[in-house]
C-alpha cells in the first residue's frame, strides 16, 4: 500500500484548488477549528495573559490602573515568609503523598496480582475513592476526624481535634491524600504487572532466584517506565492540589496546611492581588517543571 492510499480517498470539492496550501491541510484546519477557538480563547490566551500579569501590579478589581512592575512581584515572593512556609508545606505534602501513595499502591497491586481469595472485593474498593467527588472525600474524612462524633478518636481512645491541631493537621491530610490518590496508582501499576512476561519469572525461578530477588531483578526493572510515568503525574497532581485540602482545613490551623495553591487562591480572590498571585503560580510552574525535568532526565540516564 502506498503512503497516499493510507488516507481515505477525498471527494473533489470546487474550492479545493484555489490556493497553494494542500487541500488536506485546509481540511485539517477546518476540523481543528471548533476545538482550537475555545482552547485559544479560554486556555492558551489566559495562560499567556496570566504569565504577563505576573510582571504587573494587577489587582482583581474593576477600578485599578495596572502597570508593569518587572520582577517586583518575584522579589516580594522571595522575601515573603508566608510564601516560604506555604512552599515548604507544599513540598512536604507533595513528596510524602506521592511516595507513600506509590508504596501503598505497589503493595496493593502486588497483592491483587496474586489471585488471592477476596481480592475481588479489594479490587472494587480500590476503585471507589477514584469514583468519588473530591469534595465528598474531604467531607467524609472530616466526619472521620471529627473531634466529637468522629470515628478515629473512638477507635484510638483519644480526644484530639485532628484537623485543628498544629502538628497533626498536616499528617492527617496526608493520610487523606494517600487514600484519595491510591486507586489510580494501583490500577496503573496492576496493569503494568499483568504485562510482565511470565517467562521472565520462570527463567528466574530456574536460576534459583527467590521471591525477593525476582521482585528486585525482574518486577521492578520491568515496571520502571510505568513507575516513572505515574509518580510524575501523581507529583504534579499533588503539588497542584486544592479542592480536597480546601474542604478539609481551608489551609488552617494557622496556615499549617496551606498548600501553595490555597495560598495563591487567597492572594488572588481574598486580597485581590492578581499580579502577585500570578507570579506565585508562575514560580510554582517553574519549580514543578524543573523537578519533573530533573527526575525524568535522571531516570532516562539510569535506564540506558
Amino acid at each position, binding site marked *: 500500500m502506498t503512503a497516499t492510499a493510507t488516507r481515505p*480517498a477525498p471527494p473533489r470539492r470546487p474550492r479545493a484548488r484555489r490556493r497553494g496550501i494542500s487541500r488536506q491541510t485546509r481540511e*485539517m484546519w477546518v476540523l481543528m477549528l471548533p*476545538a482550537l477557538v475555545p482552547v485559544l480563547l479560554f486556555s492558551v490566551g489566559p495562560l499567556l495573559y496570566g504569565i504577563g500579569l505576573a510582571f504587573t501590579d494587577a489587582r482583581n478589581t474593576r477600578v485599578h490602573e495596572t502597570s508593569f512592575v518587572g520582577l517586583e512581584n518575584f522579589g516580594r515572593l522571595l522575601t515573603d515568609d508566608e510564601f516560604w512556609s506555604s512552599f515548604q508545606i507544599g513540598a512536604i505534602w507533595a513528596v510524602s503523598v506521592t511516595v507513600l501513595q506509590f508504596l501503598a499502591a505497589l503493595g496493593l497491586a502486588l*497483592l491483587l496480582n496474586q489471585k488471592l481469595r477476596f481480592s475481588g472485593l479489594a479490587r472494587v474498593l480500590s476503585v*471507589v475513592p477514584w469514583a468519588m467527588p473530591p469534595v465528598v472525600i474531604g467531607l467524609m474524612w472530616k466526619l472521620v476526624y471529627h473531634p466529637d462524633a468522629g470515628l478515629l478518636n473512638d477507635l484510638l481512645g483519644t480526644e484530639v481535634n485532628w484537623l485543628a491541631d498544629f502538628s497533626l493537621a498536616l499528617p492527617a491530610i496526608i493520610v487523606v491524600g494517600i487514600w484519595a490518590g491510591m486507586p489510580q496508582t494501583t490500577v496503573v501499576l496492576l496493569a503494568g504487572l499483568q504485562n510482565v512476561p511470565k517467562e521472565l519469572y520462570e527463567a528466574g525461578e530456574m536460576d534459583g532466584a527467590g521471591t525477593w530477588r525476582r521482585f528486585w531483578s525482574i518486577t521492578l526493572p520491568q515496571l520502571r517506565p510505568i513507575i516513572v510515568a505515574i509518580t510524575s503525574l501523581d507529583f504534579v497532581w499533588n503539588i497542584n492540589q486544592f479542592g480536597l485540602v480546601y474542604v478539609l482545613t481551608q489551609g488552617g490551623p494557622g496556615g499549617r496546611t496551606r498548600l501553595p495553591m490555597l495560598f495563591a487562591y487567597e492572594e488572588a*480572590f481574598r486580597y485581590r492581588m492578581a499580579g502577585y498571585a500570578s507570579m506565585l503560580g508562575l514560580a510554582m510552574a517553574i519549580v514543578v517543571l524543573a523537578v519533573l525535568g530533573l527526575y525524568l532526565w535522571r531516570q532516562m540516564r539510569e535506564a540506558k
Partner: protein
Amino acid sequence: MRRVPQYVALLAYVAFLAFPLLWLLSTALKTPQEMALTEPTWIPREPTLANFTDAFGEQDLVGASVRSLVVALFASVITVVISLPAAYAMARYRGLVNKIAIGWVLVSQVFPFILIIIPLFMILRDLDLVNTLPGLVVVHVTFTLPFALWMLQGYVRAVPPELEEAAAVDGAGRVRSIVTVVAPLLAPGVVATLLFSFISSWNEFMFALVILQDPEVMTLPLTLVRFTGPEGVARLGPLAAASLMATIPSLIFFAIIQRRLKSGLMAGAVKG
C-alpha cells in the same frame, strides 16, 4: 499457610479503604440523638432515612443538583461535539499541528490552575459571565477538552483507515463513509468520553468556587461545602446523606467502565 501474611496485608488494605466509607454510610443513617452520644456507635441503633429527606430540605440541594446536572450535560456534550472533529484530524493527519496539540495536552496537565483562573476570571467578568452557569460551562469545556481530545484520538486511531478506503472504493463520499463506517465503531469511545466529561464537570470544585459566588447559582459541590457551617454535630447526618447522593453519578460511571479499567487504564486512549 505461607499465604497468611498476604491475607493479613490484604485485610489491612481493605480496612483502610473501607472504613471511611462505612463511617459515612453509618453517619448518614443515624438519628441526631445518636449522633450526639459521647461514645460514637458503628452500627446505627435505629437506622433512619430521615437524613436523606432532611438533606433535600436544606441548602437548596435539589436546586444545586439540577444546576450541576445542567452544567455537566452542556459541558460534556459541547466538549465531545467540538473535540470529535479535532480528534479525527489528530489521528488521521500526522504533522506539526498534531505534535503541538499533544504538547498542549501535556502542558495543560502541568500548569497550576491559578495561572489560568485569574485571567479567566477577569475575562469572564468583562463578558458578564461571572456568577452565571454559562460561564462555568465555558470553563468546564476548556479544562476537560485536552483529556477528551486525547481519549477520542486514541479511539479514532483504533478504527483502521482501510475501512474508510474500502467505503470510498465502494463509492461512498467522505461524509458518508464517516457516518456509516467510522461513527458506529467510534460510538463506545464517544460514550466513554461523554461520561468522563460529565463526571469531571459534576465533580469539579475549584473553578466553580471562583466563578459562582451567589448561593442561588451554586453547583452541588459548593452547596455541600456550605453545609459544613459552624452549626456543629446536628447537621452531620444530612451532610453525610447528601454526600452519598452526590457520589451516585460517578459510581454509575465507574460501574459502566469497570471492564475497561480491568484491562488497563483507558487502553483505547493510551494506544499510540
